[in-house]
């Protein structure tokens, strides 16, 4: 940081030198540089947190993942960490995913279509809009209470076999589908809003009904954005634990519920990856830590893969559309 002295004196030479010096710059912009570095550091710290977390999980879980991956994926919940596996958790998570996809995707997309393509700007529409945005911000544990009251208790006989007390995958799947519904609606709405109005006008101009315009032109155009939103919503649903606890996921041991396509198990006691992790996280000892970390890596693999795919696809489509 050098501070050049201002050339003194009068006359054209000196004046020119002064101007030249002013333009070329005297002081180095210290505060500016510092500010730049500070905000860059903030970003890097945030990314660092992510990196440290991933590395920590991988290294802690490495013994299990490299040592006995097959047995780990296949095994059931046991009292010994060395013998425990996440198969039952995977089954539960799988079926929750199925429920979310089958229930909240169609419902959410349809609702978004209504709000963006059909609804007139009435007070009812605005109310629905505000309501959905609020639902998106409700804590997941409150959705857990909803699931507990309606599915686990009130609809106990529908959602579960007599012995299960309603604490079943069906209850959990329904609850999570409801939890994720506002997110699907919001992201689908954004995708629909991004469709250029010229496209709709062209359809109307040729004499199509509104439903035809939506079906033939708007939806195909918005499909990538909608798909991205639904994948993000699914990833979110698969990671939630609080609603599962409220709905009654098993935290102890579980017999059965270890086959993926056994439909009867849907109405029995269950667990899923997030609750497996929660249970194991509370157990003391290095061996349990390793198993927990390994389970986390598996869950992260699924969730982060979904998230990354969605983000990458969205970026690529946005670029293509220009």
């Amino acid at each position: 940081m050098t501070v050049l002295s201002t050339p003194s004196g009068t006359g054209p030479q000196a004046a020119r030198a002064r101007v030249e010096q002013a333009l070329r710059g005297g002081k180095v912009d210290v505060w500016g540089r510092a500010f730049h570095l500070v905000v860059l550091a903030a970003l890097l710290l945030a990314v660092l947190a992510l990196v440290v977390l991933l590395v920590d999980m991988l290294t802690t879980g490495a013994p299990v993942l490299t040592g006995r991956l097959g047995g780990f994926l296949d095994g059931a919940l046991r009292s010994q960490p060395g013998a425990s596996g996440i198969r039952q958790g995977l089954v539960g998570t799988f079926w929750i995913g199925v429920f979310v996809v089958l229930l909240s995707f169609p419902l959410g997309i349809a609702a978004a279509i209504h709000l963006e393509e059909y609804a007139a700007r009435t007070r009812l529409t605005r109310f629905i809009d505000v309501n959905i945005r609020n639902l998106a911000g409700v804590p997941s544990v409150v959705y857990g209470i909803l699931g507990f009251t309606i599915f686990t208790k009130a609809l106990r006989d529908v959602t579960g076999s007599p012995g299960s007390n309603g604490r079943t995958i069906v209850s959990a799947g329904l609850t999570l589908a409801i939890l994720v519904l506002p997110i699907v609606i919001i992201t689908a709405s954004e995708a629909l809003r991004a469709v250029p109005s010229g496209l709709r006008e062209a359809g109307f101009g040729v004499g199509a009904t509104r439903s035809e315009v939506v079906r033939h032109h708007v939806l195909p155009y918005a499909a990538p954005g909608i798909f991205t939103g639904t994948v993000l919503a699914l990833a979110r649903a698969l990671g939630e634990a609080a609603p599962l606890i409220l709905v009654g996921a098993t935290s102890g041991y579980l017999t059965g519920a270890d086959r993926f396509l056994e439909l009867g198990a849907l109405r029995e006691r269950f667990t899923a990856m997030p609750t497996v992790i929660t249970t194991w996280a509370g157990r003391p000892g290095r061996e349990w830590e390793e198993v927990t970390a390994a389970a986390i890596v598996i869950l992260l693999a699924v969730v982060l893969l979904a998230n990354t795919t969605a983000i990458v696809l969205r970026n690529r489509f946005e670029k293509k559309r220009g």
Partner: protein
Amino acid sequence: MTDATGSLTIDALSGDRRRMRADMVTRLLVLAAAVTSILISALIIFSLAGEAWTFVSQVEVASLWTDGWFPRRGLYDIKTIVVGSLLVTAVAMLLAVPLGLGAAVYLSEYAPRQVRKVLKPAVEILAGIPSVVLGFFALTFISPEVVQRFAEGATQFNLAAAGLGVGILTIPLIAAVSEDAMRSVPNSLREASAAMGARKAVTVVRVVIPAAVSGLVASFIVAVSRAIGETMVVFIAAGATGGALFTTDVFGPGQTMTAAMASQAAGTDQVRGAGLTFQSLFFVGMLLFIVTLVLNLLADRFVRRVRQRY
């Protein structure tokens, strides 16, 4: 006025019956879908209201101001869990606001395109990490390596570690909303400032950030709402499962509203306990619902203000 030969009838302009019917059916179906959202809100309120009211109407006022939150023993000291939530949220914001805001400023104002293409998704990926993962990370890494190293006497389970975990979770939220707000500030403002000879940092601090302030406030409110609603990080890392004494010490175990609910549900096979234990769950849930509702409505208003200006 000469008329064309062969006048047109209105009937001829009434359209294809089948297509009109299909249009009508579609309209009704999507309307039904949209209305289910209202149904969900109604169900939530319905689920909470009954038992929450039972609690409020039957609870002994004395039990609301005691040593701690021990629902199974009939001690419902609300301030324990509320203060717990506030402490965790405060710690979280102490971490998330500087990092999130800083990251947003960098991504919006400084980052070259190539850098942005890599680092922005990295922050977004952070948003996808399930909270149970952060809870375990808080317990097994943040607590020993960060908290216990800097705070003598911190226990293994402590609110600070949980708070930092929640903070990491909310960084991407603040970053995303703030960045959006700053990017929607028109370039003409930046150019005007630069044309007056202001350095970039000055432009950012004096022009861009004030212009985006509604969005920044909104991001903060949303983050607070998220932090208050976060359950699993505290559940795993803050240690108070059955009940908790009132505390303001972030370096020791504690309980939040959310984790209290989860603890109660997870504790035994039955959610019931003595007296109003069961109902206390719903009472806390109702409290949470109202708090986050208010915060979200507030944030909404700020977001709309941003949109209106530009």
